[in-house]
């Protein structure tokens, strides 16, 4: 079995995997980082989104061995020193989650979206969420949360 090493949430992580092992399974099974979820088998739900080298990636579409040497951030690594990331805080404030299953992927997607697109509006947020499914919320409060976080983060940088 090949071994793989990467940096996950700022810490060195390594393990033995099968070549067919997906990054999401390496994170969940080997590292027990179960915040990243699996919601489908066709790379369409986005429950598994993590950041690899600063970009949002569906970790079910990537082999663990492809992440060799990469910097990976999962939902568990988003809050810093016990302080929630503004996107996490906004999801709570605007009731952007119900069962919470899609939430880690939604938040990781949102963080990436806000980083990439300076002026988000409702239409852009909705189209950017194309790769993330939520069955509970009807998306309205997710959109609201992302919009609020984006405005807040812009304010903080201005």
């Amino acid at each position: 079995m090949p071994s793989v090493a990467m940096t996950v949430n700022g810490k060195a992580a390594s393990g033995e995997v099968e070549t067919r092992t997906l990054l999401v399974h390496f994170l969940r099974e080997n590292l027990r980082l179960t915040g990243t979820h699996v919601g489908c088998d066709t790379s369409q739900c986005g429950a598994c989104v993590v950041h690899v080298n600063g970009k949002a990636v569906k970790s079910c579409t990537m082999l663990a061995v492809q992440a060799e040497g990469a910097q990976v951030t999962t939902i568990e690594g988003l809050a810093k020193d016990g302080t929630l990331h503004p996107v996490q805080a906004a999801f709570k404030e605007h009731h952007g989650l119900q069962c919470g299953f899609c939430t880690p992927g939604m938040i990781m997607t949102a963080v990436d979206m806000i980083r990439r697109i300076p002026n988000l509006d409702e239409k852009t947020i909705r189209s950017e969420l194309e790769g993330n499914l939520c069955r509970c919320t009807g998306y309205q409060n997710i959109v609201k949360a992302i919009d609020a976080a984006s405005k807040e983060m812009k304010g903080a940088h201005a």
Partner: protein
Amino acid sequence: MTAPVIGASIRRKEDHRFITGQGRYTDDINRHGQTHAYFVRSPHAHAKLRGVDTSAARAAKGVVGVLTGADLAADKLGGLICGWMITSKDGTPMKAGAHPALAVDTVRYVGDHIAIVIAETYGQAKDAAELVKVEYEELPPVVDPAKAQSDATQVHAEAPRNTIYQWEIGNKPETEAAFAKAAQIVKLDLTNNRLIPNAMEPRACVGEYDDATSGYTLYVTSQNPHVARLVMSAFIGIAPEHKLRVVAPDVGGGFGSKIFIYAEEVVCTWASKKVRRPVKWTAERSESFLSDAHGRDHVTHAELALDADAKMLGLRVKTIANLGAYMSTFSSSVPTYLYGTLLSGQYDLSAIYAEVDAVYTNTAPVDAYRGAGRPEATYVIERIVEEAARQLKLDPVAFRRKNFVRKFPHQTPVIMNYDAGDYDASLDAALKLADYAGFPARKAAAKAQGKLRGLGFSTYIEACGLAPSAAVGSLGAGVGLWESAEVRVTPTGGVEVFTGAHSHGQGHETTFAQVVAGRLGIPMENVEIIHGDTNSVQFGMGTYGSRAAVGLTAVSRALDKIEAKAKKIAAHVLEASAADIVFENGEFKVAGTDRKLAFHEVALNAYVAHKFPTSEIEPGLKESVFHDPTNFTFPAGTHICEVEIDPDTGVTTIVSFTAVDDFGNVINPMIVEGQVQGGIAQGIGQALLEHGVYDKDSGQLITGSYMDYTMPRADDLPSYKLGFTVTPCPSNPLGMKGCGEAGAIASPAAVMNAVTDALGVKEFNMPATPSRVWAAIHRTRAAAE
């Protein structure tokens, strides 16, 4: 005292763990020595099993065990059950075929379970499953519910003509008489499309046998762990209830699909003793599509009789309900008592007669999905009412108002007794919010742009709580539908609430805590809500049918008892008479004096037990209640949908969606709005996007992945305009009604009334996908030429 807690949009207590990745869902649980399971499933819709050879799979790398239906039968385990007995109109009981957890001699739908392969890793189990050699003798499947009763294929020998029951409700002679004297009769054919629930968390379980205690533990994605334990114990016979612990940890959405007791959890629990290791299974999404219980799937003909003054005289309905290849846990009740009883809608109708034939087909079992029967009923009544207004050339609002129920209580001809409501109030508020008056101008403006605008109403009513136990028992339910609550006060004044309700997105950890904190005048942080584990909670019926109000009433009644006992203790400590003790803002006071005790001081006294006679008052502070509701609760309201259709592409855009709901008193408006938004999204999904389709000839599921089954995405949906009106529910002390399903119940009819308005057609089946809308536009144009 600070602002009231009950009725405030308090942010959710449970959110922290979910937004930081610390939720604990079933697939996150890993037990020591755990193995992994994969199920061998039928690739055929209908076949005889001529042989199942597991020898090669058993010899494969990492395999711990392979078990089949023969092994289950050898252990004399019972099959899966349907817990609601329906009696046909001829007095005979429903005709159900056996439902073994692993098929014995026949497979009846694509995805039917044949064997479990258990291995050290999931990959090994899946690889070895390919080595199980199954010899099939293929049989022709029957797929279409409308043809099931005349098809040569018999799904179960026990049910001739594939007919499980032929049920009726209402008053037939009165209805015939109403039609005989009608000035006008409006007729409509409708289908209610098959939906696949698709909670984002796939079903999963871990079964574990402990030799030391000879007990089992099952971790499972369930909305009702106690019901799962009862069924697995009393009917399937895995272990007595006291030797079976069922834990439903965080559950990632249910919408009904996680009520039912499924083959996989039964087999994994049983297998854990066979292999003496914990056995874990998690569905791949493809398996969810194949084997989760689906929803809806009705074919209906409806007729409405009207007098010359547009007053509704009578309604008759004939429905064929597809229950799939086996009867799932509550499937029989959905197209009957959850459907026929709501056919009166918000209208004063004295004559209703409905007949429902439930049929077997070679498709996945069909059972309750968000709304369960009530969306189907609302779709029938609200589509035919809108159609009647069009045929009579009446404003749909005026026509509805002419027929609204306005006196309460109101007894319908179909069992339900509406206790309170004000249908004009929610209609008025919705008309304003939707700017109904401005619609003709908007329609004209759209027309000038070459677009088709339409507007549709749905003035719905539904019934929640599911409900007085004796009442449901007399209707065939195998269970009572009360709920339990136990409130334990700790010696330092913390409060633990053990509830039989289960939260899988509804936010009970917050709303239940609000009720406790508001009532006892203590901080929310001092309240812990415990649910989902049969080892903690004595018994409970779980969460479905928007029945958390039943659980909350149980909590509220347990708090009554806590307060009564605490008053007695406070009286002794304060050396006053119990009658003089008042409880306000978390303090027990002697009326008219400044002598008082804080809640936590009384709690401590209750446990120390130094200052009251323990011969009269037991030490400790803990009370429990089993609350049986006295009626359903009846949320009602108005949804208005406005669509614009592009005739060149057939794309339907929802330009505005308005919902005004009457949920009685609301505990947490933020959470209620979230429930409505999610429900509407599922209803719009049904109306415009979603459709579970089986190939008519092969019985293959054509919509078996997110490539083919169109889930609503963020850019398919608008933001909704929501409003609330309040008529408190008279049957519970908090005056609340259920709110979890109304969105999904009301919205499909509103959307389809808008689509048919825009297209100017009478009948149009859901989902209104672009290709079907485009085809309809071109059919109409061709006919006009």
